[in-house]
Every structure is written in C-alpha cells, then in structure tokens.
C-alpha cells in the first residue's frame, strides 16, 4: 500500500523548531519531485516557442558575433592565435550558465508560491530544480561550441575533462547567491530588481569578450569577481590550455562559492519555515 519511499513505520513528529530533524532524508525522498519540476520548466519553456530549442542557440550566436566585432575587430584585443568567436563563446558559455541559473533560482520561490502555500516538501527543491533547468541550455550551447571548435580545426584535448569541475564551480556560485536572493525575495520583493542589475553589471566586469592573461596588471583586480576564475577556467579547458590559468583567481572563486553556498544554505534553512506564512 505504501510506496517503498515511505515505509509504514514512518513516524513524523511535528514540533516547533523540529523541521530540521529529517531534512536531508526528506530531500532525498523528494528527489523525483526535483526531476519533475525541472522537467516541467524545460517543457513549458520550449512548448509555446515556435523556434523552440533554436532560441537557446540564437542568443549566444548573436552575442558572440557582437563581442567578436567589438573586442576582436574594433578594439583589436589579443587573441593569442585562437579564432576570436571561439574565444568569446568559451567565455560566454559559463557566463550564460551562471546568469540564467542565478535568475531562475532567485525568482523560484515566489514563482512557485502556489505550491509552497499548499503542499509540503523541502523547499530547497525549488531553487535546485530552477538551477538544473539552466543546465539544459548549457548543454545545447556546449554542443554548439564543440561544432564550432571542430569547424575551426580545434580538436578537444584532455583539458576538457577538467571542465565539469569549473561547471560545478559556476553552479555553486549561482546556487549560493540564488539561495540568498530567493529567500530574501519571499519577504522583500525588492530583490527581484537586484538580479537583472547584478547580471547587467556582471556582463561588463567579467572577461567574456577578452582573455585576461594579456593584462597581468589588471588580473588581480579582475580576480575579485568570482566569475573571472570560472571563465578563465573554461577557456583553459575548452581551448586546450592555450590561455594560462591563474591559480589564485580559481582558489578565490572556489572559496567564495563555498562560502556563498554554505551561508546561503544556512540562511535558506533558517527562513524556510516561515515561507508558507509570508509568501
């Protein structure tokens, strides 16, 4: 009668402050819901768009063309022997993943308020599902990059194998910031306006259209932006190590993302129990 995930003997005790007790066990039990919510968002996203998946490709292509013209042709920034479009797309790939993941996750709780006020499940599922949706776009653009890179005669090297590490780093950054922002948005809708602003600034201060290794003087300053380490890392992986990697910026990104995720989790868990009351 009971599904395997819920043994008959399961006894739930509800007490003030007790919601912490079985949180991670509950999260694991609801993993299918995580999948369904992500699947719903992906499905809905492409359902009414005539061009469907093509949108995920059109956007990065146009951005790549614009950045190539501005940075490669007008500003004549050094490319180090890499076709400029490839250079741009390698940087755009992690940036787009980060910005969509951040935008999706920070709006996720308010966007699912009907669920939150009517059904119990570990609320962490909502931002997690929102973030996994951005992975879908990432994979599509990654395929685009692979095609382009082969067309330019760049065969993937072993460096590609390190890429998942930087992928995780970008996701962790987005999740950490997203947890803070989505929990804050439940109470203060102001934070909805902060995210587009952050992303807009990020486009300008992140090295998306140019490589950082030709500007040694600026590198320490740029490294303060946690996305610099991620973008440098992606270029290093996807362009076969032709752009040297600055360990300090990667370490900085990693430690910042760890801090963000841990503090984000702490804040989210602390405020979670009142979500249904104030959303």
């Amino acid at each position: 009668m009971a599904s395997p995930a819920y043994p008959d003997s399961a006894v739930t005790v509800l007490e003030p402050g007790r919601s912490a007790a079985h949180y991670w066990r509950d999260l694991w039990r609801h993993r299918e819901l995580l999948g369904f919510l992500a699947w719903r968002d992906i499905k809905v996203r492409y359902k009414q768009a005539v061009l469907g998946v093509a949108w995920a490709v059109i956007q990065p292509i146009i951005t790549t063309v614009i950045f190539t013209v501005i940075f490669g042709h007008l500003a004549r920034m050094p490319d180090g022997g890499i076709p400029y479009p490839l250079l741009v797309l390698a940087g755009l790939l992690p940036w787009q993943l980060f910005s969509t993941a951040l935008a999706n996750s920070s709006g996720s709780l308010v966007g699912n308020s009907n669920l939150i006020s009517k059904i119990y499940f570990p609320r962490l599922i909502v931002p997690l599902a929102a973030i996994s949706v951005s992975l879908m776009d990432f994979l599509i653009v990654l395929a685009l990059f692979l095609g382009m890179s082969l067309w330019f005669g760049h065969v993937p090297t072993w460096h590609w194998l390190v890429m998942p590490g930087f992928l995780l780093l970008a996701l962790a950054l987005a999740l950490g910031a997203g947890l803070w922002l989505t929990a804050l948005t439940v109470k203060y809708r102001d934070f909805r306006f902060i995210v587009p602003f952050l992303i807009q600034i990020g486009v300008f201060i992140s090295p998306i259209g140019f490589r950082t290794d030709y500007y040694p003087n600026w590198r320490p300053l740029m490294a303060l932006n946690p996305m610099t380490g991620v973008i440098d890392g992606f270029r290093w992986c996807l362009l076969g190590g032709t752009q040297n990697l600055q360990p300090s910026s990667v370490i900085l990104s990693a430690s910042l993302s760890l801090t963000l995720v841990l503090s984000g989790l702490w804040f989210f868990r602390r405020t979670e129990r009142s979500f249904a009351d104030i959303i």
Partner: protein
Amino acid sequence: MADPIIQVENLGKRYQLTHEIRHDTLRDTLSHGMRGLIRRWRNREPRSALEEFWALREVSFEINRGEVVGIIGRNGSGKSTLLKVLSRITEPTTGRVTLKGRVASLLEVGTGFHPELSGRENIYLNGAILGMSRMEIRRKFDEIVTFAEVERFLDTPVKRYSSGMYVRLAFAVAAHLDPEILIVDEVLAVGDIAFQKKCLGKMESASRKEGRTVLFVSHNLHAVRQLCRSALLLADGRVLEAGPCGHVLERYVQATDASAPHVPRPSPELRDQAYITALAIETLAGHPLHSAAVGQPWRVRVRLRLARPYRNFVVGIGLVTTDGVAAQTAWMPPVDIAAGDHEASFEQTVALQASTYTVIVGLSSDDQSIQQIEAGRLDISGDQPHGYYPLTSGAGVVLNSMTTSLRPV
C-alpha cells in the same frame, strides 16, 4: 482497538499581526526600523509589541487508524491552520503532533497544474507534487484517466479544458493517492454534483476497505454527516467539541444559533432608503429553525423599514448551496409601497435536497438593488421520504416557487 495514527498535544500556532504597517519592500522595513530606533532613543519608549494572534490554541486530540473525521467550525475558527500544520506546510508554535504514516494533503484541487502542459503531463506532475512516485503514477495512470473521464483530451493542454474537466482530472489524481492519512480541505466544493458523489464514494471506500484515515474539512454539514463517524468542532482556535459526528454537528448548529440569522447594521445611506431590520428562519409554527429534514416546510420572515415610499418595490430571497450553486430564487410581485415598517414572508413549497444553504435576502425598486444581505444558514438533512422527489441542488435554479406575502406592521 485504540490505535492512534494522529496524536495532537497542546498544539498552538501564533501569527504576528502588524497593523497597517506592511513591510513589503525593503525600504518600508528600513524606514520603519529607523523611525522606531529614533523614537526609542528619544522617548525611551519600549518598542510597541506586535499584536499576537493565536490561530490555534491548546488543541489536543487523537485520531485512530481508519477513522474518517470531519473538522467543522465557522470561518476563522482555525480549521485551515490546523490542516496546514498537519500537512507540514507551516510549523506549530507550541505543542506536538505525531503522525504515524504517510500523509497526503489536498488543500486545493490541482495544485501545481500547469496550463501549458497536457493532461497526461499534468497527471505525472501533479502526482509527483502530491507525493506519488513515478512508478506509482504509471501503475495507476489508466485508472486515473478513466476516473476523470478525459480519455479523449489526454494530449490537449489543460488550459483548453473546461473547468469541469480540469477539476475532474485534478481530483482523479488526488483520489488515487495511497497515503495512510489523507487530509482534505473543502475541495469537494467544486465540480458537478455527480462527480462530487463519485469522489465522496471513493473516499468512503478508501477508508472502509483500505483502513485509510481521512480528515475532512467542510462547510457542507450534509457531506460531513454522510462521510464521517466522528467530528471535531473548532471555535476561536480551540477544540469546542469532539466525538461522534451527530453530537458534534448538533453542538455546531447550537453554537451558530446564538448569532444567526445575522442582520448587519445598515449603512448611513441605507438609513435614508430601505433596509432589513430583522429576519427569522422558522417553522410554520414560528419556532426558530436551523436544521430541517428534507421535505419539512419552513419559512423566512423579513422585517423591513422604509424611509420613503417606493415604486415597484421587490423583496427577493435566494438559497445558495455551500458550493456556491444558486438553488432557488423567489421574489414578490413588484408593488408600490408606503414608507414605514413592513414584514415579508416566504414560505417554502418545494423540497430541497439535503445540503447546507445560505439564505440571501435582497431589496430592490425599479430594478435597482437597494440592499442585499447574507442572512443565515439552513442545514437540510435526512433521507428523502418515499415517493418524494426533492429538487437536486445542482439541477438549476427554481424560480418563484415560494408562497409570498408582504404587509405593513
């Protein structure tokens, strides 16, 4: 025998009300906080306490395995809060709840339905949201589709469904949940009568055959009576009465007696026009009536005060079921009427189906509405007498079937 599956001990839920001040934006919070700080610093006045509101207080009860328990109470008595605490949507402030088994709650029909997705996709999505595993949904898929009667529209986005189809599909998913404890909030208030019956039947059989425990909140006393063996009456966040269903319902009706029928004070504008001063729902002998048997005659007497004469003056009455279906409407023939006090009487001539009805009384003149009030509730219950064909509440509106009279007093 005693095998409590739900134990609630001394449960309390407090909300904090902030009057007038809603900090919906950060700016509000900041500015309010700053002002408070300055005020405190200047006057050393203690920070004004937020008003506390206990939606639930010292609630204790036990429910045994396989029981179907109705939770009744007036609006704001704490029913919904209790359900929210039991379904783990919100945390209690005090006390303790022990639930032995898998809980599924149905506080709304079609939670998480997405209009763009097809019926098939929504079955999976909604099932997952309600706590079913993918395997479970796949196993019950055909049964759900048959129950909902939407076979032909499985691949149509639900935004193109009629509201009836939508509700049927949503309820069908919920009805196929297999929890040990099912919590249902007033969801039967939607959908057509035939489908409501089907759902009630499904819930009934679930508890009887499979030993499922059901908590059922409803305004429809008839449905509670039909479905539940025991009931819990809440008032102002406390348990007023618990025990056998009939006993608790009686207590509920008594508790509502004191205040109903309820006639609101007229607004200043109405004082210069016409308004209802008193109202009684009673037997033909003139005894107050709050629950009647099917087919038992009854009447509504309305006292009015007219500040000036009116042309084409009409007194009307409407009976609405708890699910919002207008069951009966009756009005007086239009008359030219003098100022002063009058009494209108409506005598029921058709038998209504068992349900709880809200009585609405309205005044109008020359087709212009003057006043309309929700006057009270009438609970009609019991079996249909033999050879008697009562009107089904969903069958549509019965027009002008009452015997009416209007005279000055």
